């Protein structure tokens, strides 16, 4: 495990990624966007509001808004950061040399994923001071903040793994990026849309039965899971209409872990050619 975490590719990735000015600009603009939203939210509720007060409920609402925006930014950035990690090396013609070193495919794939996630974690951690505004006004428990961050981490790892997989399978970064964005969009928007449609159908009195479909699509959607962390209503509604009482968050964790493991196994298997010749000698 130690060799997996402390290895040359990981060192190289972290060194090169954090050495570039682009990375610092990335963090800067990320915080600028998130900070702008937080300040805008506070201004709307104080300066531009008749009450000119910031109550704990509003603080909780601001936390939710920030969490949603951050979720959106994670879904937007993860494919960009991971969908070129292997195909980019292939395009720069550095991959062949890397693959002739004795480093294992597992070590290379994990290093690429961990270094990308490390950058995202840096962004999330650097946004913590913004969240301190929320704690200043109350309304949110630290455990909720930790749960939310843990949830971000799962989404980052899963989307990141999907990005690494497409980057390994597809030769061109641009195509790999488009497909990874497609998957992220489906998980963020497509599943939400299908869940809403399913719920509407089940709400129709003439449709007097339950269906697992809204549950299945709902458990895949990061935004629905994020809401369920704040409000229990949506979870119980989905469980009742689908007839499944199993925890939605647990289903989410299991399904995302499954996608992660599958993506990583495919990436590791396909990074190098299967050297066995197809026919005998």
């Amino acid at each position, binding site marked *: 495990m130690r060799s997996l975490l402390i*290895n*040359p*590719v990981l*060192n*190289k990735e972290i*060194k*090169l990624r954090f*050495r*570039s000015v682009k990375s610092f600009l990335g963090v800067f603009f990320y915080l600028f966007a998130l900070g702008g939203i937080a300040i805008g939210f506070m201004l709307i509720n104080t300066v531009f509001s008749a009450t000119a007060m910031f109550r704990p409920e509003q603080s909780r609402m601001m936390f939710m808004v920030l969490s949603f925006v951050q979720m959106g930014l994670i879904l937007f950035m993860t494919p960009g950061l991971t969908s070129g990690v292997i195909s980019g090396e292939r395009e*720069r*013609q*550095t991959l*062949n*040399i*890397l*693959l*002739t*070193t*004795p*480093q294992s495919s597992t070590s290379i794939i994990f290093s690429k994923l961990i270094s990308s996630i490390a950058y995202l974690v840096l962004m999330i951690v650097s946004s913590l001071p913004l969240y301190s505004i929320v704690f200043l006004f109350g309304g949110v428990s630290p455990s909720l903040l930790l749960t939310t961050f843990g949830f971000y981490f799962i989404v980052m790892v899963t989307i990141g793994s999907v990005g690494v997989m497409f980057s390994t399978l597809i030769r061109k970064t641009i195509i790999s990026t488009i497909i990874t964005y497609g998957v992220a969009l489906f998980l963020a928007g497509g599943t939400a849309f299908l869940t809403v449609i399913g719920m509407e159908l089940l709400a129709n009195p003439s449709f007097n039965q339950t269906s697992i479909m809204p549950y299945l699509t709902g458990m895949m959607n990061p935004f629905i899971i994020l809401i369920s962390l704040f409000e229990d209503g949506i979870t119980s509604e989905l469980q009742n209409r689908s007839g499944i009482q199993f925890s939605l968050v647990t289903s989410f964790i299991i399904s995302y872990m499954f996608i992660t493991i599958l993506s990583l196994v495919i990436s590791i298997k396909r990074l*190098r*050619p*299967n*050297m*066995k*010749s*197809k*026919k*005998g*000698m």
Partner: protein
Amino acid sequence: MIETINLTKKYGSFTALDSLNLKIEKGTVFGFVGHNGAGKSTTFSILATLLAPTSGTAFVNGYDVTKDPKKVRNHIGYMPDFFGVYDQFKTVEYLDFYGASYGIPPSEREVLIPQLLELVNLSNKKDTYVDLLSRGMKQRLCLARSLIHDPEVLILDEPASGLDPRARIEMREILKELKNMGKTIIISSHILPELAEMCDEIGVITNGKLVASGTVSSIQQQLQAHKMINVKLASSIEQAIAFLEDRPLVSAITRHEKNENTLTFAFSGNDEEQVELLKIAIEQGLSVLSFSQEESNLEDVFLEITKGVEFS
């Protein structure tokens, strides 16, 4: 040290490599010649464990590339024909990264890297960003990189391509030094004639097939059957052409554009038959000023072979 047995690579119906059989002994410098797309890089990629053969197999240092690719990687230093570098690395960091990739401890790397930079004449560029190096320097750095784990076998795919004459000479000198160090080197190059003096053997590949293999001199001897002869005449050039056209062993008679009194023709006879030809020519009254055989260099050999000339 390197052996391929019926090594074949097919892409659909296209055969990139057709039952290649090679045997390169330890310490040999083997030059691999062939036109673009002949199958050189395909062979090298299979030896470097980057490409799976369709059938057949290859052994490097006794390890089967299809069964023990991990062990093969520890024994080879591979330099591809086209390669990139990590732009944001400095020269030392670049080598350090690959040293670490081969599991060389940091303390050993500290000693090894300056030695390698010295070998490839890049000591004065150790803190320069790789991106800022010239092409020739990058080629030399890549060569140093392929040597970092002290491999017994070096697989160098066109290491001198795209280099100016000075850089080529520098590369050639480094390769000579590696030869003296006892490395087994398999090298492909368009400048093989320049490398002829350092290659112990050459193999000529065309359309995926090995058409000739052996020492440089033996291949040149094989080509003796197709030697080119220059004849300079004082007069009666038309008569000479008519005379040569009647000879069964003579073909491809051409008249020099600049020097109209000179003819070049291909002669497929042996030395005695060549003497006989000159004797008859003089007896028939041709005013021969000079009669000489063109010295064929490795480049000519390569061109002849890849034109599809059959070997005797």
